[in-house]
């Protein structure tokens, strides 16, 4: 049924719980062609809440509706039906953007500006006064590690550097709610770790973060709750630790003891006695990311450090193609 919208001052404010930052109600986006025919349902009746102070992850394969959801929240797209509210205000209301920081998937920044000019430009858009703008820009440039490159125009930046300045522009207004679309895209492992630490730091400061990423390990590392989308439909939603927990299996970790055959037999006997079955024994492996970071840290601490090949490998030499 059609309706006339009589817009008055109070419009666009939804009744939401105090700790809810984002709420979508039956949020649907259908793309249509020039003639109004349905092309694709990008998002279908999404109901979702993001609470204050949490890191929320949006997961899903390409075309699942993650970025569409973010664009709907930011007012870059208009919902076909349903509504999205941020801080209790409709997504169409630009005033809500005062408290939002947004890092797009690609750093869509003006490449003819340098880092300082970029932050100054976005600071002005937030109507921040000159002194505060300068102070905050300087702090953020240092934070993202671009102090030496702040006078270079963005066209000369690498993808990782653009991602860093993109993050700086997202934080220029000291936002309460930060939206990060593929934040670790284009970053090396060091940058990825730095980004993840920064996201965790934002949570410590009481900020709310919404991130979507293809890198599941990143999401698992930092997110409190996640939603999994597939083909525009919400498939799963909940606390990360609960969702990934395998309640049918048990894990033991111990230090200060040698893993001998005798110990194995004794432990197996105890498990069998309690009706279980021992599946595997072994030393826990670190992640490749941890290994990489440890080596880089050591290299920094000991300049001149080089890889020493094991003696037998050196003697035999590397295997050549065709050998």
């Amino acid at each position, binding site marked *: 049924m059609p309706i*006339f919208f009589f817009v008055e001052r109070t419009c666009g404010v939804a009744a939401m719980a105090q700790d809810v930052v984002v709420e979508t109600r039956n949020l649907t986006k259908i793309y249509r062609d020039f003639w109004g025919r349905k092309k694709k349902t990008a998002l279908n009746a999404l109901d979702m809440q993001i609470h204050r102070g949490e890191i929320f992850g949006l997961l899903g394969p390409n075309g699942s509706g993650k970025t569409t959801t973010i664009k709907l929240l930011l007012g870059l797209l*208009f919902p*076909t039906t349903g*509504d999205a509210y941020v801080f209790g205000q409709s997504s*169409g209301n630009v005033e809500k953007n005062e408290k939002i920081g*947004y890092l797009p998937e690609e750093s869509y*920044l003006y490449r003819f500006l340098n880092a300082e000019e970029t932050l100054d430009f976005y600071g*002005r*858009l*937030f109507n921040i006064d000159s002194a505060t703008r300068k102070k905050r820009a300087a702090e953020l440039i240092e934070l993202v590690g671009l102090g030496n490159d702040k006078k270079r125009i963005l066209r000369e930046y690498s993808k990782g550097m653009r991602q860093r300045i993109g993050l700086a522009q997202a934080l220029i207004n000291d936002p309460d709610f930060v939206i990060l679309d593929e934040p670790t895209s284009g970053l090396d492992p060091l940058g990825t770790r730095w980004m993840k630490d920064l996201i965790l730091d934002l949570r410590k400061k009481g900020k709310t973060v919404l991130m979507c990423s293809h890198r599941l390990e990143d999401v698992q590392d930092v997110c409190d709750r996640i939603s999994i989308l597939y083909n525009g439909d919400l498939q799963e939603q909940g606390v990360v630790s609960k969702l990934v927990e395998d309640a049918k299996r048990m894990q033991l970790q111990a230090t200060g003891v040698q893993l001998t055959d005798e110990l194995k037999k004794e432990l197996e006997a105890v498990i069998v006695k309690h009706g279980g079955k021992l599946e595997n024994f072994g030393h826990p492996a670190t992640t490749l990311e941890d290994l990489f970071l440890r080596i880089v840290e050591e290299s920094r601490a000991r300049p001149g450090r080089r890889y020493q090949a094991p003696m037998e490998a050196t003697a035999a030499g590397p295997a050549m193609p065709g050998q």
Partner: protein
Amino acid sequence: MGLSLFGLLILDRDPYFLSDLPGLVQAWAIDAGGFGMIGLLVYILYALTIPAAQAESAKYRAGVTSFMLIMAVLALLVYALYLAMMFTGRGYDYTNPKFYVDPNAFTKYVPHKLSFHGQPLALTIGGLLALLGIGQPFAANMLKIRGRRLWAVAKLSFKEAIRSKLLWVFLIFLLPILFPARLYSNIKPENELRSTIAISTFFMNILLLAPALILASFGLPRDIKDQNIFTVLTKPVERFEIVFGRFLGYVGVLTIGLVLMTVVGWLFLWTAGVDEKAAEETYKARVPVRGGLKFQSRKTDFEGTNVGREFDYRRYVAGDPSSPQRAIWTFNSIPSGLTAGRDYVPCEFTFDIFRMTKGVENRGVDLIIRVTTWQNIQLPPTEPRDGSWKWENPDKEAEYQEEAKAKLRKLRGLGATDDVNPATVFRFAEPGSPEWDVLNELTEKYGFYEIVGKEIFDYHPESVNIPVGIFKNASSGFKTNDLPAVSIAVKCQTGGQMLGVAEGDLYLLEGERLFVESYFRAAFGLWCRLCIVVGISVVLSTYLAAVIALLGAAAQYLAGYAIDHISDMASGNSFAGGPGRALVSLIRAETATAQPDPKSSVDKAFMFGDGVFSWLVRRVANMVPDVYSYSWTGYVSEGFNVPLECMVMNLITTIGYLLPWFILSFYLMRSREVAA
């Protein structure tokens, strides 16, 4: 106007003065209000189609306030009243009558005049109500605009333009300066300045308007394509701030280009110098007082002769001692500055001579110029072959002659019976001389002054001095008739020659200002054009692809140069009728001037179709910018002052033209899904 055909200021339309403002505001309310009404109705209908399930987020795109609804209803009522008046034939706009004009005849453009008749009044009120309705969300949004954000977007556009290096194109402007036209073509010395101004203005137009079109049409679409706009619109930025900020940024950077080119052009003129003859004719900024032109012969319906020239801007009076034909310039009011502190007023003129016979070598034609006031009524001769006009009161004329002789005898110490010819003495009297003082006394008393035997040449500026007494006579006493305060009647004495005149060909010279002042003022007209081009381009680019926006804006602007033709089509005064009439003529192999048969149903059907076509063209014509009103090239190149008042009007009309476009951009931008 463009470049003058004969190297003279062609005044086929007067510039807008502040006195035209009320009429122009009314025309604006009628035209823009009509579009506003359509927009308001479309918008309300669109709001009606939005499903209730989309309530909250749609409020920001298609919200309808009670104020908008009330305005829409009121406007509809007023438009209904207009239709009722139109069909019952009441309230016709007699102030701005629409009548058939001979499409071949030269007609001077007359701006809309303020009318209080029923029909225009209803259209004005209806239009204003519609504009208030459609403009309310726009106005409310304007209150949210913050200077810092606007400046940010403007500065961004500015830097984008500078760093894109597109503006190096301005350097091309140096080419005509490095390689002056006089090196390549044979230009008359007196036309040197005209040519330089014309060439530099041409280059400036191209070099400014082309980059303006490109920059402004591609800016926003590129932002959307590259998705830079995502990082902007996710800030607390009003969408109109982006449109207006872009506009300001591009106008800013192009203004610098305009200033640079104007200054460089001026430095070129200043350093290269101007030929003495050119300086005498055009290196000045005359402040003219212009009058109206009428023609009169023995019979009152004389409108000047058409000598068959294709360009019929000028009409001709026959030259012969026995010719009663006069071209008469009438001045209804005399500005106080014209007579202050001097004993004469220069009168300048430039006429065309259409030679029926070869004439005498190196000899121009002779004129009689008679200046009279409302206190000295002149009558045309009643008898054939009588070429002299008479004083209404012959006794007064005799008294004038006697007094003139007496004063001159006294001045020269002659006896009462000595012969003296006042006409000859006064013909050679110079301002400041004792004879001139006598002349001033006489003209102040009798309101009459005549110059006999003034020789002129084809299209060559000439001047005569008119005693200030004439104007004192015009200002004295209580005016008892509706005659103009001062009339200047010109007669051609040379037989076999026709004197071609137009309204702008003769004027009283109030004073002269510096050429440089006029030169820089003329750049303001180009700046207004620049604003229009950038404005249209930015607005169209809010919804159209860059190339389409560019083509659309270019077509819109260039249509301004064809406004005369479009107006003819809109008013049904086109030479060959509308497209229907043209088709019929083509099929029947009729000439273009053949008239339709009013009894033929086919002709009637096509004429109706042409009527609908004219109506549509009229709507299009309302959207076309009045580019000619911003052209001051002719003024500068011909050595005329560009009045400050007209510059103010240029600014007002530019704002008036762009405002509806900006309202349109507000709605287009608000309804656009930039990430779709």
